[in-house]
């Protein structure tokens, strides 16, 4: 049953180097059975795809339904309306929230990408005695539960008078992040040394080596880091809950939580408003995924199997 996966179909790069399997001693019955099994597999996958994608479609569809029909589970709204979007727009400062989130996300993702790349390059390219122990420490921080540092970190920003601003949501990213350092280091380690030695002989500074040679060569990994952090930053709820009190400063997930509290189970039970705000929170992430699909899937494959 697993045989057709290689040879006849899209071969992953790693498997392409594997020699062709020996000719199989399967004929007739076995082949028919295999075709039948393939049919079952595809049917199961189609059914599962519906299960996985349907909630998103359901959410989108419900956002165009009047209140009385939100729960009717129809794929196409019986009485499609844009009223929910108008209501949400009027009852919540969504444009402001989206703007806030965009700024925070852009700063957070840019900061972590540049700083993590710097640090990763330091660990990948240079040899110094503290390198081993320091990198061990980097890996150790990956295991640290965020909840442990939550309160003291809050107190640091509080001491600096920055609680209530967006700074605590991204400024911590200026110092690199363990997971991305690990990821980018793997990529930097894959670069040949010769171009750097040659450039050094030509008098290039260490910064030039990094910024003009290493970074351009590892652009995919940089894009991946940016995308991962953009998603993490956009969807985060915990930190906005901790640091933002004024509704005007909210990010969209924090704003959505406020909408849930006002219109959801604890409030006025206007689910169509909650649904619509959820769609507005989610759509940018779906767009981000399709813009960087290649990077997401490849990146996760790499981190899992190499990590």
């Amino acid at each position: 049953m697993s045989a057709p996966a290689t040879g006849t179909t899209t071969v992953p790069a790693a498997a392409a180097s594997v020699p062709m399997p020996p000719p199989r001693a399967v004929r007739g019955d076995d082949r028919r059975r295999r075709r039948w099994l393939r049919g079952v597999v595809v049917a199961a996958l189609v059914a599962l795809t519906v299960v996985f994608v349907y909630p998103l479609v359901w959410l989108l569809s419900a956002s165009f339904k009047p209140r009385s029909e939100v729960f009717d589970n129809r794929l196409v709204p019986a009485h499609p309306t844009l009223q929910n979007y108008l209501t949400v727009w009027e009852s919540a400062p969504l444009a402001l929230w989206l703007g806030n989130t965009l700024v925070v996300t852009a700063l957070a993702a840019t900061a972590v990408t540049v700083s993590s790349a710097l640090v990763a390059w330091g660990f990948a390219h240079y040899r110094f005695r503290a390198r081993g122990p320091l990198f061990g420490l980097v890996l150790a921080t990956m295991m640290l539960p965020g909840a442990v540092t939550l309160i003291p970190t809050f107190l640091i920003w509080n001491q600096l008078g920055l609680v209530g601003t967006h700074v605590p949501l991204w400024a911590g990213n200026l110092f690199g992040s363990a997971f991305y350092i690990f990821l980018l280091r793997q990529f930097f380690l894959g670069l040949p040394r010769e171009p750097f030695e040659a450039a050094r002989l030509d008098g290039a500074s260490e910064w030039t080596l990094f910024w003009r040679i290493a970074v351009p060569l590892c652009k995919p990994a940089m894009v991946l880091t940016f995308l991962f952090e953009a998603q993490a930053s956009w969807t985060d709820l915990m930190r906005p809950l901790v640091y933002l009190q004024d509704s005007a400063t909210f990010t969209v997930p924090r704003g959505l939580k406020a909408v849930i509290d006002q219109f959801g189970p604890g409030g006025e039970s206007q689910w169509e408003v909650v649904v619509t705000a959820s769609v507005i929170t989610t759509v940018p992430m779906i767009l981000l995924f399709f813009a960087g699909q290649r990077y997401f899937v490849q990146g996760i494959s790499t981190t899992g199997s190499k990590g």
Partner: protein
Amino acid sequence: MSTVPGAVVPGLPTRPGTTRAGRAPRGRLTARARHERNAGLAFVSPWVVGFLVFTAWPILYSLYLSLTDYDVLNDPTFVGLDNYRRMAADPQVRLALWNTLQYTVLQVPLYVVVALALALLLHQAGRARGFFRTAFFVPKMTPPVAVGVLLLMLFNGQYGLVNKVLAVFGIDGPSWTTDPVWIKPGLALVSLWGVGSAVVILLAALQDVPQDLHDAARVDGAGWWRRTWTITLPMISGALFFVTVVNTIAAFQMFTEAYSAYFGAGNSTYSNDAALFYVIYLFREGFQELHMGYASALAWLLFVIIMLVTAVQLLVSRRLVYYEGDQR
């Protein structure tokens, strides 16, 4: 496939013959080695600063805070081990721990098994693999707050789609979002919606399993089951272990989905005991009640628990996980 985070440390890839090159006999460095060290330290310095300010100091400071009474407005007062004593007697701590444990024990095996099943299925899908992989991954992009909304709506006992579908099969679905018994299963089920990233990881591992192992086993008459158990699973055990550990740590820190569905933020104060997970309790104690000292003690207990669980998993993995090219 060859490394786990913990295993990378000792074997830092160094080019043969260059590791200690340029170092003069007794610790003194040549000009070139000194230059290299300085450049390296300069590049890693942002992380060192960040580590000292945002990791090392917070860990130590939270240990100190856990021995105090502190409400942010007034200076901390030292109370010794009072917070820990209070924790031992706090029924809410017991409830939160019990809830978290139940959720973790339910969610992790479910999640890993489903991820594995989907990955095995996808592996058989041939040309369409890429399409289905995307379909499974897209839900992972949904912000967890919105997942909380979907949970409340799709799992609504009366009107929800889930129970409507169950009714088609003659099953009378439970009140997933209100019945204390069903709240954790509901959360665990909804977490499966985000199984996509684990599927991608496991699928990548499956594609790395050498085909000739399978061919040899098939020639010897091994069926699909047999080959899966004796070849595939051992060969991807590293990735399975990775997925299990990462997911266990995440389950222990369950916060956003449960919080957005069952707890009020800001001025809303509704709450749900059946969804009171450990980090939610910690968060409410720290930032809503301003019991920063007590919350720090709670954070330390969580830290210790997660370290213990991870250590146990690492020990178990020594016996069960096979790493290709492993030196051990």
